[in-house]
């Protein structure tokens, strides 16, 4: 886990890469990698790589970055973890490759030499990397299937720049800070800036599950190697496979396998623990997989103490029952207010979320952890959000036009007048997940910015594009949209910056392309029942008092502490978004 940067002055007319720019970019990412740092410039000054390192696999200096091969032909900066690096290493060794370290970074380097661009399809992990291939004078850039690890690029037509964070790219001083109206509109519509935009016009995210080359002509179009929609579409004719094994047994096998990969580390791996099914089941299965329970961290908010919203007593009871070392970390309003300046400084792009991860990561770091596993992604995988019920229902209701129109009039929610948007899957999803509606934007951004932003954003088309090829079932469609929109643009992005601000690596065993591929037939066949099967998968199954507890969100009572106005929604997130917008810039 690191912060990386790669610069390539690919046009002859472009000025050479400056060390000062690389240094500034790397310095902005220091919390992402406090253990070591390095900068490399090619002899001709056309290419520069920089990295900050949080050492987790191979703690020795042999794993430092930028890393170079013995011939000086290949150079890499890499952020993330390759969980199957040992298998890939063994395979390369069968072909005679000799390694100098035990680091996964070196495996990437040699895998690229052996398999070229298709190497990316063999990786199991979370990753973003850039490899400078001096032989071909081109840079190979790639990002993991779900976009767990961030990577942003800025291309001015002469120099290509890439870095782990938007703010780091800006810190180099050569990238424009002009706000992208599409990013701004996207933030107010969804609560986060939806890819393929960022809040700054000159900066774009690398598409998750894709790779591309940059040569003297500039970046090539990205090649997609993974899509959630295609995964579900492929599973449609695999019903017989879903029916072979009892669901809880299959879930147990595959999640334990995912955990075994995600627990690969040369430092202790802890866990975030709430009283929800995902985190408790993961901790129980980790206990079985490693024959020892991980150190667990739970948040407790002073305003929630003694109420039903307080998860700490249940988490403590669960941890005690399975013998896990456990820390409950109390968070007070004063601490939240005191942390806000640092919180907004670390926030890489505007978002209405991230506070929960900020504090639980802070608590984990205080407990001495460098790595923690999280149950994030479980709701998307097992279909436990209300959207899995409500989005198909909206689409069904809108299939009968008078019903949609009447519902629009009767509902009190401020989004209700747009109810007929729900005649398409994209529209229904936006209605369910949206923060503001398009006609609210002029008031928030001014009419010109709102109009331009909405036009460029074209959000409904972008949401809809995620559904190609058609995942085939209502469950598959909503699961795809949740993974491609909410999880990618908000959950995973916020998890990254909010944890890295505390030099903590968060691992997500339930956000794993291999796991989704393996489970897809079962998920399509069983839908939201899979959550119950998941809770039954440990031996013994989760206790009844945890399994039957109503689902609750894992959120910081921000609105209450900040005394925010309700502004039409029960969560008061619309008001919080205005605060974020003001404080971010």
């Amino acid at each position: 886990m690191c912060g990386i940067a790669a610069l390539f002055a690919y046009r002859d007319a472009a000025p050479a890469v400056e060390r000062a720019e690389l240094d500034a970019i790397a310095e902005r990412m220091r919390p992402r990698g406090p253990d070591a740092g390095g900068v490399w410039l090619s002899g001709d000054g056309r290419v520069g790589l920089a990295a900050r390192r949080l050492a987790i696999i191979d703690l020795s200096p042999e794993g430092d970055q930028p890393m170079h091969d013995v011939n000086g032909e290949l150079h890499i900066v890499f952020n993330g973890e390759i969980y199957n690096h040992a298998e890939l290493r063994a395979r390369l060794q069968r072909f005679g490759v000799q390694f100098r370290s035990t680091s996964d970074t070196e495996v990437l380097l040699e895998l690229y030499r052996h398999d070229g661009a298709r190497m990316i399809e063999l990786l199991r992990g979370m990753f973003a990397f850039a490899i400078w291939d001096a032989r071909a004078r081109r840079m190979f850039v790639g990002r993991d299937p779900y976009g767990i690890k961030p990577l942003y690029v800025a291309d001015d037509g002469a120099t290509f720049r890439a870095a782990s964070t938007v703010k780091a790219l800006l810190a180099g001083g050569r990238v424009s800070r002009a706000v992208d109206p599409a990013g701004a509109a996207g933030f107010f519509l969804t609560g986060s800036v939806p890819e393929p935009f960022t809040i700054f016009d000159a900066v774009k995210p690398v598409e998750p599950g894709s790779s591309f080359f940059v040569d003297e002509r500039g970046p090539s179009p990205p090649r997609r190697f993974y899509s959630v929609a295609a995964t579900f579409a492929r599973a449609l004719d695999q019903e017989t496979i879903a029916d072979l094994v009892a669901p809880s047994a299959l879930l147990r096998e595959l999640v334990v396998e995912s955990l075994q990969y995600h627990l690969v580390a040369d430092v202790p791996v802890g866990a975030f623990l709430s009283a929800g099914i995902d985190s408790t089941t993961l901790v129980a299965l980790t206990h079985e997989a490693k024959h020892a329970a991980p150190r667990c961290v739970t948040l407790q908010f002073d305003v929630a103490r003694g109420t039903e919203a307080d998860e700490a007593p249940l988490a403590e009871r669960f941890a005690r029952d399975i013998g896990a070392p456990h820390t409950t970390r109390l968070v007070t309003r004063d601490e939240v207010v005191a942390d806000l300046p640092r919180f907004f400084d670390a926030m890489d792009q505007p978002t209405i979320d991230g506070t929960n991860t900020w504090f639980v990561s802070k608590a984990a770091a205080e407990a001495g952890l460098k790595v923690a596993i999280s149950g994030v992604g479980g709701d998307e995988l097992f279909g436990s959000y209300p959207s899995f019920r409500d989005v198909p229902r909206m689409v069904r209701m809108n299939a009968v036009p008078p019903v949609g129109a009447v519902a629009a009039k009767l509902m009190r929610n401020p989004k209700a007048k747009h109810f007929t948007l729900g005649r398409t899957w994209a529209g229904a999803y936006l209605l369910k997940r949206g923060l503001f509606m398009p006609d609210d934007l002029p008031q928030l951004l001014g009419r010109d910015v709102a109009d331009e932003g909405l036009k460029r954003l074209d959000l409904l088309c972008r949401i809809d594009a995620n559904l190609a090829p058609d995942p085939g079932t209502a469950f598959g469609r909503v699961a795809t949209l949740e993974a491609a929109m909410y999880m990618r643009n908000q959950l995973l992005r916020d998890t990254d910056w909010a944890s890295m601000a505390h030099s903590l690596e968060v691992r997500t065993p339930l956000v794993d392309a291999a796991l989704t591929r393996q489970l897809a037939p079962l998920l399509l066949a069983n839908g939201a029942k899979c959550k119950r099967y998941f809770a039954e998968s440990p031996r013994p199954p989760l206790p009844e008092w945890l399994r039957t507890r109503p689902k609750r969100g894992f959120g910081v009572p921000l609105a209450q502490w900040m005394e925010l106005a309700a502004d039409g929604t029960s969560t008061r997130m619309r008001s919080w978004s205005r605060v974020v917008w003001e404080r971010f810039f």
Partner: protein
Amino acid sequence: MKILVLCTDAYGGHGGIALYTRDLIEALAAEGDVVAIPRVVRHELEPIPPNVTFVAEAARNMRAYMRAVGRAVRERFDLVVCAHVNLLPVARMFRCKTVLWIYGIEAWKPTRRGAALVRGVQGVASISDITCERFLNWSCFAGPTFLVPNAIHPERYGMRPRNEALVQRWSLAGKRVLLTLGRIVAAERYKGFDEVIEVLPSLPDDVVYLAAGGGSDLPRLQAKARDLRVAERVVFTGPVDEREKADLYNLADVYVMPSRGEGFGFVFLEALACGVSVIGSRHDGGREALRNGELGLLVDPSNPAEIRTAILDVLAQPRREVPAGLAHFTFDNFQPRVHSLLGELIDEI
């Protein structure tokens, strides 16, 4: 000692389970007298070992089966080996110490009354750990369990030159051959035929796929090969004569079966016994047949990139040899394994 074996098929049966049961009966016969009552006899009987009474007429119909069972009930047995979960109600009629033998998918999911019937069993022997784990998950069986993997008779296989008649029959001259052998029926789509056909377009043109076996799902697979424009590179052999099996394996450069439903995958052992490099699945019994990767490469059957890469890797390093590790599964090791485990079971019982 007198042992009753209740089985689906054994002598006169084709396929991995029939073969396994024959080996099991032979191993048990070294211990005492064995009476075996099959449900199915489809082919000519192989030689029956001494000490074994194989009640072939029981397979004629249900009445004949129940008559055979009725006769057996009047006898006294020291042990009943019940070789299928669905035969547990029959085993129960004997009011005798019972060992349930499990092979694969028949034991991976709860069966009607299965959990209740299993409670009357004193031991469970499984062909693989994965089958045992999946069985325990639903049955909650708390008694002793034992691992008794398949046996291979290497002398029936061996490396040999390609059979020219088969090469000509299937136009394999100058081609590199991938092979999968299995029943091609809708209920067994877990074999991995689909997955191999899907990666074929990304493999070199001289690589052809021998999809060996017959079944009702053939037209669907043929259509898939046409859709992917690899129809001319896929040979559907139809049902394979047992006598041609060793020659069939010897045609292959790679035996590849990225399956998800094999309890063990005896075909892997057969291919290895012919010196063929093997690619199996990480997510079913194939993993154990290949001894966690010691005897062949393991892939995630849901990942086409892994399957493709494994095939290319094997083709890049062609090697024909019977691996020494195959000895772990020879009948010479199977027999004492059965007897020692059975001895433990009987003591336990």
